């Protein structure tokens, strides 16, 4: 064990402040916000805790813990979680939600202003998501108490630092960063797809009816009644939810593009985080392609800011040689 009792300075100022005499380098990345809990609420939606493993929550045991790929660019921060090649959850914090945001440019970056995440972030690394969430929530949740948050990163190889402050008490979290692999990119341009934009509350109600003991969820999006149909087959038997029995689709969807009936099966366990996110979202865009790609894009307003949470899930009924 390293001699951390001697190394870590007693007063946090020496390591936290960016302008001290010993710190003449310009910090590669710095972002400050007055409300850590907003960040933690949104980030928690992509954390999949293993309910069977409540005992062994130690961050050393890497096999159990979930890692997140962090991409930092001049337009904001992305946190991306993946499972195999068939699930991706992504949270994007645009720079405007921070009171202060400095990010060194990536000189070779090409920023496509149309996409949510630029092609070439300035910084990219893999990090333990459970530890970030524990740090963000370190002071617990006291009503009317605000915890301020600062992210600091000094470039490749250095730890990702979170500085939290509440009531004059400062917590300094330093998390080891690792090399990140490329994240999945789901391209559905040109494929036949059905899309709907719906009130998240309505969608939450629809998903609330499901039998969660089922391992598979069948989703049907179609231009005819009932427009959206969800079916499960679990311990309680076969269950079907018809979204709309008689009305015009325009009455239940804010907007829609339903071309042909598209039906696919998905692992219900992968859909669960998408459903959980509905509890904090206002509107959700749901997309289902003929090729079996399902995506949810949640619009999450918190305070005066709007956050975006996206999920991509591949159907489990696809032929093995199907590629994206």
């Amino acid at each position: 064990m390293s001699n951390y009792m001697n190394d870590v300075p007693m007063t946090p100022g020496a390591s936290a402040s960016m302008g001290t005499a010993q710190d003449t380098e310009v910090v590669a990345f710095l972002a400050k916000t007055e409300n850590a809990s907003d960040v933690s609420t949104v980030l928690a939606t992509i954390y999949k805790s293993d309910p069977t493993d409540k005992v062994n929550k130690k961050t050393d045991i890497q096999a159990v813990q979930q890692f997140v790929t962090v991409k930092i660019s001049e337009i904001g921060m992305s946190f991306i979680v993946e499972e195999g090649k068939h699930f991706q959850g992504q949270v994007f914090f645009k720079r405007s939600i921070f009171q202060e945001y400095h990010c060194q440019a990536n000189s070779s970056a090409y920023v496509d202003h149309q996409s949510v995440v630029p092609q070439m972030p300035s910084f990219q690394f893999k990090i333990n998501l459970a530890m970030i969430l524990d740090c963000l929530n370190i002071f617990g949740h006291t009503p009317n108490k605000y915890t301020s948050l600062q992210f600091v990163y000094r470039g490749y190889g250095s730890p990702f630092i979170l500085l939290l402050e509440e009531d004059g008490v400062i917590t300094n979290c330093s998390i080891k960063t690792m090399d990140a692999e490329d994240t999945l990119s789901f391209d559905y341009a040109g494929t036949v797809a059905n899309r709907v934009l719906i009130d998240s509350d309505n969608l939450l109600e629809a998903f609330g009816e499901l039998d969660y003991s089922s391992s598979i969820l069948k989703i049907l999006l179609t231009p005819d009644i009932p427009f959206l149909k969800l079916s499960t087959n679990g311990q309680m038997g076969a269950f079907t939810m018809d979204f709309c029995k008689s009305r015009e689709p325009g009455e239940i969807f804010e907007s829609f593009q339903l071309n042909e009936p598209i039906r696919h099966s998905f692992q219900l366990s992968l859909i669960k985080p998408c459903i959980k996110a509905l509890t904090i979202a206002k509107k959700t865009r749901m997309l289902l392609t003929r090729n079996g790609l399902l995506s949810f894009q949640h619009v999450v307003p918190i305070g005066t800011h709007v956050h975006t949470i996206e999920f991509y899930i591949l159907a489990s009924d696809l032929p093995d040689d199907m590629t994206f």
Partner: protein
Amino acid sequence: MKFSAKLVKAKVLLKIILNIQKIPGDCVVHITQKKVAFIIRSDLDEGGSQVWCEIENSNFFDELNIQSLSDNEIQFQLEIEHLKRVLQSATTSMNEITVKLAKRGIPYLKFIIQSTQQSVILIQEIPIVLLTQQQMAQINEPQLPDPDVNIFLPNLKTLQNIIDKMKNISDELCITISNNSELKLAVETNAGSISTFYQGLTHATLGGKDKTQSQITRSSAVVDIKKFQKVLVLHSLSPDDVVCCIYESSLLIHAMLHNHKVVVTYYLPIIIKN
């Protein structure tokens, strides 16, 4: 040997028991004219944790009667879980509680719980093992000198929130106290570290000595984080002051409840001292 009393403030006593119960082991109860001490020591050979709690009789008992051949002091051992259960059932509604020492072959503590609203009388008995005065003399609170540094701990509930998250990182917690009003808590593993810094805390003046020093003194100790977490449950007692001191091989946490006239002192073993 005689002991009988009407127990008042049973709810407070229950809270105290729920706290000290965090230290595993048999509980020694030492009743004197003025005070009752509850002592639990776990794993003495391995340098385990201890808790010494003292309550003032005038605050918890009415119609107190103690008589014994050894200076009117009585000492015995009991299972704290039994005492907890009796107090839990006795405090579910308004009751008059009488406790007395009794014997029916073996000695036991008898609780007579009379409901003030209904004519129901409940009798609960806890088996005890009497201790002699000589045996009690062997049980001594650790005699420690004035520590180099001490500090009044900040809000325990917030501390508990922090330790709750820190224990996910590591089993060991490093506590650093300085004499310039600073407290630091830290955990570290290969995956990273978390440190929390408090400033502007206060110190207790011990032994009447004025410890104003120009030099900054600092002391660190590594303790088992789960043991420390258990002590933080003290917040449920809303203590007025909680002092923390670092010694050579133990960490002392001393809580005072002024109006209830209760003191609770925990001794936790130190894994590494610096």
